[in-house]
């Protein structure tokens, strides 16, 4: 199989592309169902996110009169989704796939992860809606809060792995996973515990769920940037969100717990791990607590996750 074909497959089919989309929708379905159970409801079928997409696909595309530019209004969800599908292809599944360096390394992934936020902001802004603008403003504030910690977390892991491998640093996801498979997961490395803690705070914020769903708070700003989106365009956003869940959770696993046997079984184990992360780390949290205000969230991130991440990096460098 030539490199080009391999790249195409990884981006279009597996582990990105179709697989990531399907798996992401499944995770979303599980999330909704589990949340319903926790709230004492029956909940929708597991495939409900897929049904939603189909339904949205049959709606007409609507653009508000105040939108600044139709093309940009409709193109942004597509850009976000494409970026996430590409990012999903970069997520290593321990024992099953290793990321091709041609897709980019960990640093590229970190910046790809910012794209959904960016497209949401542009979407909110370009729609001409006041709620969209407020959502945009909140999203940026939140990003300013959580990007610092994630950069530090990534740096800490990269330095820790790189030094252990006899280099200065490595941003190769494949190498980070390989290292853990040989020397044990980073989760069990006390030096990286603060980093892990910071990551735990990072991903709900990045995924935009309670208590950090401030930009899209439907009870406050009517889903913020998404308020004017409907039909297929909204569907694209939903897909983006689903794939993003795969990317963020997958990144977490790759960085801290890439523990799975090789072969098809490994894929199953990985999927289960992802599901557990989703249900425990996302669903339980979002059902269990309420939303923060933006200033609270900002202050919170500037305190604890940042502190933890800085501490982690410092410990890594000193150790």
């Amino acid at each position, binding site marked *: 199989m030539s490199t080009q074909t391999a790249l195409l497959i990884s981006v279009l089919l597996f582990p990105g592309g179709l697989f990531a989309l399907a798996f992401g929708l499944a995770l979303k379905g599980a999330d909704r169902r589990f949340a319903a159970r926790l709230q004492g409801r029956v909940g929708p079928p597991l495939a409900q996110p897929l049904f939603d997409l189909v339904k949205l696909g049959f709606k007409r595309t609507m653009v508000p009169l105040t939108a600044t*530019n139709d093309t940009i209004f409709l193109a942004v969800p597509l850009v976000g989704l494409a970026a996430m599908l590409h990012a999903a292809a970069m997520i290593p599944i321990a024992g099953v796939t290793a990321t091709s360096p041609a897709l980019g390394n960990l640093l590229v992934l970190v910046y790809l992860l910012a794209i959904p936020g960016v497209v949401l902001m542009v979407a909110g802004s370009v729609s001409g809606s006041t709620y969209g603008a407020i959502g945009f403003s909140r999203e*940026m504030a939140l990003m300013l809060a959580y990007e610092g910690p994630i950069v530090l977390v990534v740096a800490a892991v990269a330095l820790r792995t790189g030094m252990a491998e006899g280099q200065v640093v490595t941003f190769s996801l494949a190498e980070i996973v390989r290292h853990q498979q040989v020397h044990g997961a980073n989760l069990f490395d006390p030096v990286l515990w603060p980093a892990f803690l910071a990551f735990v705070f990072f991903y709900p914020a990045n995924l935009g769920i309670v208590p950090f769903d401030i930009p899209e708070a439907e009870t406050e700003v009517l889903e913020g940037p998404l308020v004017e989106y409907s039909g297929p365009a909204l569907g694209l956003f939903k897909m983006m969100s689903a794939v993003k869940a795969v990317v963020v959770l997958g990144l977490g696993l790759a960085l801290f717990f890439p523990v799975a046997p090789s072969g098809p079984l490994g894929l199953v184990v990985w999927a289960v791990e992802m599901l557990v992360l989703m249900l425990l780390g996302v669903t339980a949290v979002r059902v269990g607590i309420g939303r923060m205000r933006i200033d609270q969230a*900002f202050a919170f991130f500037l305190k604890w996750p940042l502190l933890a991440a800085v501490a982690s990096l410092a410990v890594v460098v000193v150790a």
Partner: protein
Amino acid sequence: MFNLPTIDPLGLAWMGAIFLFFGEVAALLALPSLGRVVLFSTVAEVGYLLIGLGIGGPAGDVGAVMHLGYQAVMRGLVVAAGWYLVSRTRSSNLDDLAGSGRRMPVAATLFGFGIFAVMGLSPFKGSFSKFMILYAAIEQGHWAIAIVGTVATVVAAAYYLILVQRICLEPERRPVELAPAPAGLLPIAGVLAAVTAVLGLWPEPLVEAAVHLTRTLDVAAIPRFEAPWSTIVLVPYVGGFVLWAVGRSAPRLRDGLAVVFALATLALVALDPTLDPASRLFALIFAGISAVMVVYSVDYMAGAANASRYWFFAFLMIGSLIGLTTAHELGNFYVFWELMTWTSYFLVVQDESPKALKAGFVYFLMCAGGAYVMHFGILLAHAGTGSFEFAVLAERLPTMAPAVGATIVVAFFVGFAVKAGLVPMQAWLPLAHPVAPASVSGPLSGILTKAGVFGMVKVLFVVVGLGSLHRFAFAGVDLGTVLMVLGCLTLIYGEIRALFETELKRMLAFSTLAQVGEIVAILGLGTALAVDASLFHVVNHAAMKTLLFFAAGAFILRTGHHDIADFAGLGRRMPVTAGCYALASIAIMGLPPFSGFASKFLMVWAAVAEGHWEIATLLLLGGLAGAVYYLRVVATLFFEPWTGSEEVREAPLSMVVAVAVLAVVIVVGGLAPQSLLALVTPVGALVASRAGLADAVLPNLAMQWPIAAIVAFLGAGLVWLVGRRSVAWSGRLSVVTMIAALAAIVIERGRFDGLSLAFAVLITAVGALNLTHATAYLAHSHAQPRFFATMTVMIAGLVGLCAARDVVSFFGFWEVMSSWALWAAIVHEETDAARREGFKYFFFNTVGASFMFLGLAVLATAAGTTDLAGIGRAASTMALPTLATGLVTVFLGLVMKAAQLPLRIDVQMHPALAPTPVSGYISAVLLKSGPWGVLKLFTLFGGAAVFARVGGSLAGLPSMMEVIATIAALTILYAGAQAVVQNGIKLVLIYSTVCQLGYVLLAVSLGTSLGVAGGLMHFVNHMLLKDTLFLVAGAVMVATHASMLDELGGLGRKMPITFAIFLFAGLSLAGIPPLNGFTSKWMIFQACFESGHWAFGVAAMVGSLFTLAAVLKFAHAAFMGAPTARALQAEEAPLAMLIPMGVLVVASLLVGLMPGLLLVPIAAIEAELGLVPVAASLTGPLPGLEGWHPGVVAVLMMLVALPLVPYLRLAFRGAGVQRVRVHECGAADLLPEATRVGAGSLFETPTAVIRGLLTPEHRAPGSQREHA
């Protein structure tokens, strides 16, 4: 015959001295009664007789007899003329006598003539006998008597001058009815005056009579004061009389003759083979400036009162200046020295106003006093050597006792210092220069002060010689030290006073003090190089200051005002004169490419070469002060509206010609300094050979101009000229000029190294784009050609900088690029704020350049070469303190240029006020000269090996580069955060620029293969992207006339292309993969982490988030959201704007998809710089272990997105898009304005935190407007 054996002769002499002194004091106290003054004064003269007789000896006896004879005649004249005046006025009180010059011109003139004769002013020879007596005292060792006599002479000079001023020159104070003229007195006075004149010109008969009378045998012991005058002197001297005579009947003929005489004098001086180099140099300066002065005076003095008197004294002054230089013995030297003072005194008081008379009084008294002191030294020298001849003195003076020698030197020095205006003897200068007619103030400042310098060089450095000066030291302090100290004090005093001066001519006068201070301080260094440097500046300052005064005179003549503030906008009415004034101002600030730069460069060079860094620093600081007050005037002339009378027009022809000739000299002196240096260097050689020192090795002072810079420079001139006819063509021509320059760079590419060639190509290419944009941006502005021209000059400087291989070119073009041309482009809008901020920017640039220059001078003088590569070779063996000082100061300057902390751009300027094409160019291109310089000099100066010598290394990096990297990393965070909180359209961008420059500088200072490659990638990417953003901002500002983001909103509907361009460039700059802005940042991140600088890496990554916030804020506030009223009236940008923006975006796209386009040349550059080149191929991926290909990623993302497009169903059954009202919770009556979320409301929490952290008290520039 006069044998008085009963009295001790010495006692007699002392009696005489005491009598003389108290007599003169009594006469002074007897004022204002003319009768009593003359009486006491006459009686006091008896003191001289007693001294002469008491001292005895040939000189004493002969002197006493001659004094008696002289006094009989001259006193008789004074008494006769005075009596006539008193009896006709019927009062002896000076208050009544004032104005006699008008009432009784003949008698008053005779009286004045008599007074000057009595005073002993050459050439009236009253001094001859007096000085013979003093000489006798000195010769016999009675110095004290001579000193008392000298002091008494000074006292007498004071009241004599008061008499002359009050009686002959002042207007009358109270009306006087004249009595009938007494018979006979006037004829008697006339006869006596004639006798006085004859005695003055042919003293020999009287001398012989005195010799005979005293039966003196030893005739040789009588000093001979004078030698025949040089024939050159006779031309202006006789000319003066001719003009005076002709002028009474035919003023036009007089003017023509004046020019002929002046040119003849100049020609004779130029052809005279007998002059030694020092004399020749000064004779040429004096004659040259005089000729220009004469031309200027033709129209300036046309119709003025007392014009004939003016011409008479002007030519006498010219003659005495030439005489001074042609003198080869001290007698003539002194005679001309006195004449110079005396004639120029009459020119100073030309207006006869009280102010002029007071200034003239101080001037005359101080200079005459100084001359008397000098005379004391002359007599002392003769007493010791028996000769006045320079040649003989040069032989014998070095053998004198140190104490005597030192006394002689000090006496001479005082005389010279007063003339040069050195502190603390400067009081006359700022008084006299401004009140004189402008035609005289120019030469007063330009050449008369230089007579003092001439004296120092000729008498002290050449005749006495540097070696002897060292020997003649008081308590270890030799003259050199005195010169340096007083020079520096004068410099400081002059600059400070000039800073606070509001009257133009007074400001210029104080500036003269400062410049003379520089000259003298450098002269004090006492090397051949220093002599060359300071004399070169003498030449240049003569031209520059004379021009400035002449132009100022024209302004005053045309407007009738004197204050700088009254000349606002005069540049519009008097373009040539004011233009030349501006040119001379730039030159005198020491900015290239004019003559002042060359000599200032050489002076700093000379100071540093001698290890006198403090003097070099002081010179540079002085330049800064000069920049402040000179630029202020230029700004007033050109960048303020003209509100005065419509009648004001260009100066008369002869004045314009004079000013233009001087301007040409200034330009030639800057472009071909060797042409003027050829006159100067023989003097340095002469001084050196007298002292047995090595001759000076001068650096090549000419800037090396690449063809492209010449093209751009000439093109700028053409742009300006064409602009007088057609603004549109001037704009197009500027674009063509840029393209031509680009072509020239490509043709002459061998002249550039790889790095610089790439930079130069970008400089001109982006320049062409921005100028294209500017043609549309300025379509409804004013004075566009001026802007096009200055921007083109600025770019010419940048191109020249790229080609520079030696220190002079490097620093010279650096200054062209970042000083006056830039300033003129920035202050284009002519508002107060623009002038203020433009000046601030200029000032900081000059400070940075000064640092850089000082460092370069330190390194270059230590290496003994101006060649940059040569310095690099010498650096590895250079003494460590020198190397460290040099490198640190050079790099400090470079880091300042990149606007890094702590000298950020927000302190430097508020760029919103400059036309956007130029502020974009500054941000995108010009400031890159900082990182470019760091990289170029780092490698040229020997790279890591040399830099590691300066304080070792940290983490594998030379610590100095580590410091720069740290500064850059902090700047990224600081400026990034600032950009987030700004609300000014351009302020957001400019802070972002500083932030991005931090990336470039950080990466380049890492010095690793990947780091430098990443830095250079970002260098280009940021250039393309930031320029795009600025051009967009410009388009927005033109479309809306807004300057704050809050005034905008919803523009994207009206300007969709502009909006799309902005969004692309902004997001790319913020680091959205896989766009070009991200790829270069990715390399920088990698390089930071891989070289172990993880903190830098984290800072760089966080910084890009700030950029994102700033860009999105801008995009939202300007283009998206609900439209404002302004936005609804806006239109899409014109093609002239869209095309440059489009070209930039396409370029960004291309280098984004194919980084090899940049990486291949970068790898070549790295190889040339001596670094390991990064792996690069045209179609290949990014370098590094984990190198990926942004093109591949882009294609993959596109392929992922394509299958999803149909999902949007845009074409399905013609469904298309349905338009709906935006959701407003049911409210239907909300105006768009009311629902807008403006720039000020975005990111409230982070903004508050950033503001709290960065600006707790201080408000950023423009913040008042934000809140208004």
